[in-house]
């Protein structure tokens, strides 16, 4: 027999993502999902951010990697709470993994939670992890056509970080091209050009974090 159904295939993930969102919003925790290709500098951006803002915010990181806890150890060295998720070959984090990881974090007093997704510009975009915003990270040693090649990420993200700008004199990255296509996909996109190595441009990124954190706090009051 034939039966009509109409069910969202990812509904199980999206339901759990709502659980995550409710839990974290209850604690007024700003939650950001960092998505980039491998090597764009997600962990470096977190290391800088956690160090530079340690006096202002209580922050934690959920690290997603196929293997090893190298990144969690790098992040924990800054003094922040860190939980490692090993996906054992899985290409993305999902809301169930995040919900489980939250059991290992002290949520009380936490201001900002970063979810560092598996390095991949495709799959992580499909799976809502319960975040407030997706942050797309791109580095100038990659192609400037990434926004054209992976439009969904840049369409959904609230922020695009362009990292490694200290290397601009040595590479052929066309900043205006990358920016133009990203904005074409998403008029509200906040774009920050920075270098985690030299520290240039980080202040604008921190300014956005402060704003978002304030907005999250106010929303719940």
């Amino acid at each position, binding site marked *: 027999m034939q039966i009509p159904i109409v069910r*969202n*295939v990812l509904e199980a993930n999206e339901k759990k993502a709502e659980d995550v969102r409710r839990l974290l919003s209850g604690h007024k925790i700003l939650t950001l999902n960092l998505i980039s290709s491998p090597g764009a500098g997600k962990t470096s951006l977190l290391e800088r951010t956690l160090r530079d803002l340690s006096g202002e915010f209580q922050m934690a990181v959920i690290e997603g990697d196929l293997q090893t806890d190298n990144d969690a150890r790098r992040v924990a060295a800054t003094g922040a709470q860190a939980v490692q998720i090993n996906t054992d070959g899985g290409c993305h984090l999902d809301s169930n993994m995040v919900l489980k990881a939250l059991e290992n974090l002290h949520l009380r007093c936490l201001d900002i939670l970063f979810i560092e997704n598996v390095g991949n510009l495709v799959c992580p975009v499909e799976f809502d992890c319960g975040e407030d915003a997706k942050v797309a990270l791109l580095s100038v040693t990659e192609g400037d056509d990434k926004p054209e090649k992976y439009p969904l990420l840049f369409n959904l993200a609230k922020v695009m970080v362009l990292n490694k700008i200290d290397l601009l004199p040595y590479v052929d990255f066309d900043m205006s091209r990358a920016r133009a296509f990203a904005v074409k996909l998403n008029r509200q996109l906040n774009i920050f050009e920075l270098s985690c190595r030299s520290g240039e441009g980080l202040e604008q990124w921190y300014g956005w974090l402060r704003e978002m954190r304030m907005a999250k706090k106010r929303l719940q009051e």
Partner: protein
Amino acid sequence: MHEMAVAQSLLDMVEEEIARQGCRRLDVAYVEYGALSGIVPESLQFCFEVMIRGTSHEGARLEMLCLPMRLRCSSCGNVFGGEGQEALWQACPGCGEQFGHAVVLGKELILSRLQIR
């Protein structure tokens, strides 16, 4: 890789519906997907086949249908259609606006019908 996770969700859902109807076997599952859903149909087919091998559903088929895309112009609100990811770049046929169209339809991934017995 992520088609494996999608195939698993799909199979869980199929099992649930089959049990609800008091049936035992899947013949065909009809899936509709948007051009922006990130799904590679051949890959999902393959993952699904592998997953049902050796189960009571072995040999069942997936019928995949790509849904047309709809965009809402960020400037005049006109809703217009397109095909594939490139449609995100196209200018609004109403006012010519090129920037920031909202995706109204295109990200869906829906189990729409089952043939079971």
